[in-house]
């Protein structure tokens, strides 16, 4: 992160290195405009929130397995209730668990942390197009951190209307305890996250379009960058609608407009709080118009990074580069026309449901193409079972499970039964945790040397992988079975219903599995921090990878490159017959060309 390492491996570095950067600590590490620092700031913040979200999940799990029995250890945090989770607290826990995980972990860790860190490095730029804007996009997360974080401590507690915040529950303050200040804070936090993502996304698009190194054509971009690019487009087009909807909900709550409240709505027989005139389903439409594309925002970058990792450790070009690119674009395009699949049972016009069902089925197609191409990449390679590779392969394996369960739900008649049951919970934890989060772990292990200049410990990395992999399946797989029994979501206690009584033992197993899963993350945390300071030094290119980022110093100095990168080929030329090494960096001139630095790279 400091310029002193710049050029330490240096070819051609001599003229770039000497200018030592003399900023204050504040401007170098806190209010830095350097994309790498911002990326790492995002990484640390989101990992911290990941831990918070994980602990919230444990509280949720505890209640589901042992309703009303005081929670050990974590229960000390709410000792005034005797460590017992009350029903209103449970809905808060579920809501905030999902909110934290989605808005403060997965979205910012993908776009914010990895997007920031990787985009300029992988396209050969010295920074983002607008560094100040970039810095602001990080600092706009803080109001959100504060709003979400503080909402636990305000009167009535945090938001408790589910992460989907369905109106009218979220609008009528009389209807739920967390619907007082907590819900307002939730909406404010959401808006800030939105503004942050917005600034990030326009910046990323500009950077990727305009600041690629000579020779880096669009079809020589690593898939990570393609995924980030298309994710940015998704953000740019989908998010404003959520922002608009969020403002409407805020107005409904604060100014008592009536967008989401129909006439004649009563709470507890009381006279209508507002005159209303609106439509409850409108919120759902607007919310999912963003949040369905958002689920792809939450997986596409991981897919991109996994593609890079798989190709690198199969020592083989990615199978079907262009189909991969087109399928990312296809997912994004189709992603805008399927939002209704969350509303099949919502009272939406059933004819609309039919249309959305067909488009939802079709969206499995690009995902299928991607899955098959990953498998194709593995086929005939020389697979190195490094930690990042294990995580990447588990991404593929787990995404298949999560994706296939999506087919059940896309089938409207089946969704009648499984909607709002644990089948859904299983589905999205498979795509989100077992998919994206595993992909993110892989990416952390993969790019850690670039970020901090040191390697993470392989052995403990594998132990971390093994435990996480086993316990995650133990936690989430059986949720499918629960769902098939109609086990409803967001229930503080299921067992007073006759048909769910026999499912408690299964839940106990899952809860203990979840506890072990969270516990095994301590290995990761220890490995992460130990390696940051004491890990073996990584050279520029510890994995023998092709991407531009691996030609820069580790960690890259200010301005990233100590030479002018010129790109001669795509990023996946592993095992090319043109060279003797099994990798072929994008910047390495072909044997019949003059050495880099000339204007040779301009033609394409």
């Amino acid at each position, binding site marked *: 992160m400091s310029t002193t390492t710049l050029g330490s491996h240096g070819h051609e570095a001599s003229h770039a290195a000497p200018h030592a950067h003399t900023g204050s600590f504040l401007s170098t590490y806190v209010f830095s405009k350097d994309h790498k620092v911002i990326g790492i700031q995002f990484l640390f913040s989101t990992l911290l929130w990941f831990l918070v979200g994980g602990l919230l999940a444990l509280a949720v799990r505890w209640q589901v397995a042992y309703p009303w029995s005081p929670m050990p250890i974590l229960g000390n945090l709410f000792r005034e209730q005797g460590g017992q989770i009350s029903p209103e607290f449970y809905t808060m826990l579920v809501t905030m668990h999902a909110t934290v995980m989605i808005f403060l972990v997965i979205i910012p860790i993908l776009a914010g942390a990895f997007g920031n860190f990787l985009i300029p490095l992988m396209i050969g730029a010295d920074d983002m197009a607008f560094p100040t804007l970039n810095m602001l996009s990080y600092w706009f997360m803080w109001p959100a951190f504060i709003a979400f974080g503080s909402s636990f401590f305000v009167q009535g507690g945090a938001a408790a209307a589910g992460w989907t915040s369905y109106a009218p529950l979220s609008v009528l303050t009389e209807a739920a305890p967390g619907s007082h200040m907590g819900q307002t804070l939730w909406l404010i936090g959401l808006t800030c996250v939105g503004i942050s993502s917005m600034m990030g996304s326009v910046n990323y698009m500009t950077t990727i379009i*305009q600041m690629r190194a000579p020779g880096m054509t669009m079809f020589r971009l690593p898939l990570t960058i393609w995924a980030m690019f298309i994710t940015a487009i998704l953000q740019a087009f989908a998010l404003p609608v959520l922002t608009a909807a969020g403002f409407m909900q805020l107005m409904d709550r604060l100014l008592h407009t009536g*967008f989401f409240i129909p006439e004649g709505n009563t709470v507890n027989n009381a006279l209508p*709080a507002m*005159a209303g005139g609106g439509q409850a389903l409108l919120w759902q439409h607007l919310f999912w118009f963003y949040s369905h594309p958002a689920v792809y925002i939450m997986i596409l970058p991981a897919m991109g990074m996994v593609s890079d990792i798989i190709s690198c450790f199969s020592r083989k070009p990615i199978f079907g580069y262009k189909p991969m690119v087109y399928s990312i674009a296809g997912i994004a395009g189709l992603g805008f026309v399927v939002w209704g699949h969350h509303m099949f049972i919502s009272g939406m016009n059933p004819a609309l449901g039919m249309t959305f069902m067909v488009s939802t089925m079709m969206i499995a197609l690009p995902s299928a193409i991607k899955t098959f191409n990953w498998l194709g990449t593995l086929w005939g390679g020389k697979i190195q079972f490094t930690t990042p590779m294990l995580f990447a392969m588990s991404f593929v394996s787990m995404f298949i499970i999560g994706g296939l369960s999506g087919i059940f739900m896309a089938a409207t008649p089946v969704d009648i039964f499984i909607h709002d049951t644990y089948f859904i919970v299983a589905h999205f934890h498979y795509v989100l945790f077992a998919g994206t989060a595993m992909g993110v772990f892989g990416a952390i292990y993969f790019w850690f040397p670039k970020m901090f200049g040191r390697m993470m410990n392989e052995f403990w990395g594998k132990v971390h992988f093994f435990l996480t992999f086993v316990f995650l399946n133990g936690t989430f797989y059986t949720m499918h079975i629960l769902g098939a029994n109609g086990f409803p979501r967001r229930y503080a206690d299921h067992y007073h219903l006759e048909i769910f009584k026999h499912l408690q033992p299964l839940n106990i197993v899952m809860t203990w599995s979840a506890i072990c899963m969270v516990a095994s993350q301590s290995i990761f945390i220890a490995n992460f921090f130990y390696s940051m300071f004491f890990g073996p030094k990584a050279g520029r290119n510890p994995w023998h990878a092709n991407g531009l980022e691996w030609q820069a110093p580790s960690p890259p100095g200010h301005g990233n490159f100590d030479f002018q990168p010129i790109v001669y080929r795509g990023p996946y030329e592993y095992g090319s017959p043109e060279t003797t090494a099994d990798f072929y960096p994008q910047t390495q001139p072909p044997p019949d060309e003059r050495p880099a630095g000339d204007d040779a790279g301009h033609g394409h």
Partner: protein
Amino acid sequence: MADQHTLHDRGAGAAVLDNSDHGDDHGGHLQLEYHPGLPLKNSKLIVWLFLSTEIMFFAGLIGTYIVLRFGAPVWPQIHEVHLDERIGAFNTFVLICSSVTIVLALEASKVNKRGQAKALVALTLALGAVFLGVKMYEYSAKFAHGIYPISPHSQIYEKPDYYYGSAVRDRLNDPEVAGRLNDFRKGKDVADLTEEQRRGFRELDEIDKAVREPRKNGPVDLYLGVSEKVLPTEEEASSSGRVAPLKKPEGLNDLFPWLKMPFVIAGGNLWASTYFLLTGFHALHVLIGLIVFGLMLLMRLGPEDAHVIENTGLYWHFVDLVWIFLFPLLYLF
């Protein structure tokens, strides 16, 4: 948008040529060369990208308005909600003028007519301020009539029904209202009242008696009569043709600002919700534009700043564009 010119705009492909732009935070490192995808400056590209997100933002808002409006069983005529399309048309004209002035400012700055450019930007700023001023006037007229959403229940009622009746009675039971009415009945301070106000009190007195004497008329007729006295509306000339009343009829609420009597506007609540939502967010955009224009006046506005004018101009034209749709949708539909 606001900090457009403060952001480091490292012109596409100009990395090598354009060292001057790399301020303190880029000191010293190697200047990289790029292969830009589009023949645009980065700043212009990002403004266009930003505008496309804005399209979606307003699509969300306008779409909401359209579906709610046409789904509503009844929507108020604009004169029922005291909206005047001539004011809207005037504001449209103002925004169109400001669009012209900003584009002329751009041309002027390109040919290095700094003074002219500055004057035109200032003119744009002034026009934008006029727009906001008119908007404020319109808002305050609505607020004065009690046409706005408010908790726990707005003063707008959909129907002259039981709920409306009890709201009227509640209001009449309010100590302040009841007190003033009683004072009038007792003849206290009557001398200080104008003729109009005396008439108003007499009407209020009638209302007070009528609503406490149930089923004299059918409640619908009775309450409609009440509402009509509280906030009269000009009758429509025909079902779609609208004749704008030049002199607004005065109602009891206009006469007595303290009265705040509820009234009936069919569809009025949702109308108020959407009207303030759309115009509010548009006005916010105008305001941001004005701030940027204000900052621009501090610049030299020669050819070197032309891109700043161009980018703000793009934003400003977009704001104009939104209004081009809002005007007919809100005032003429």
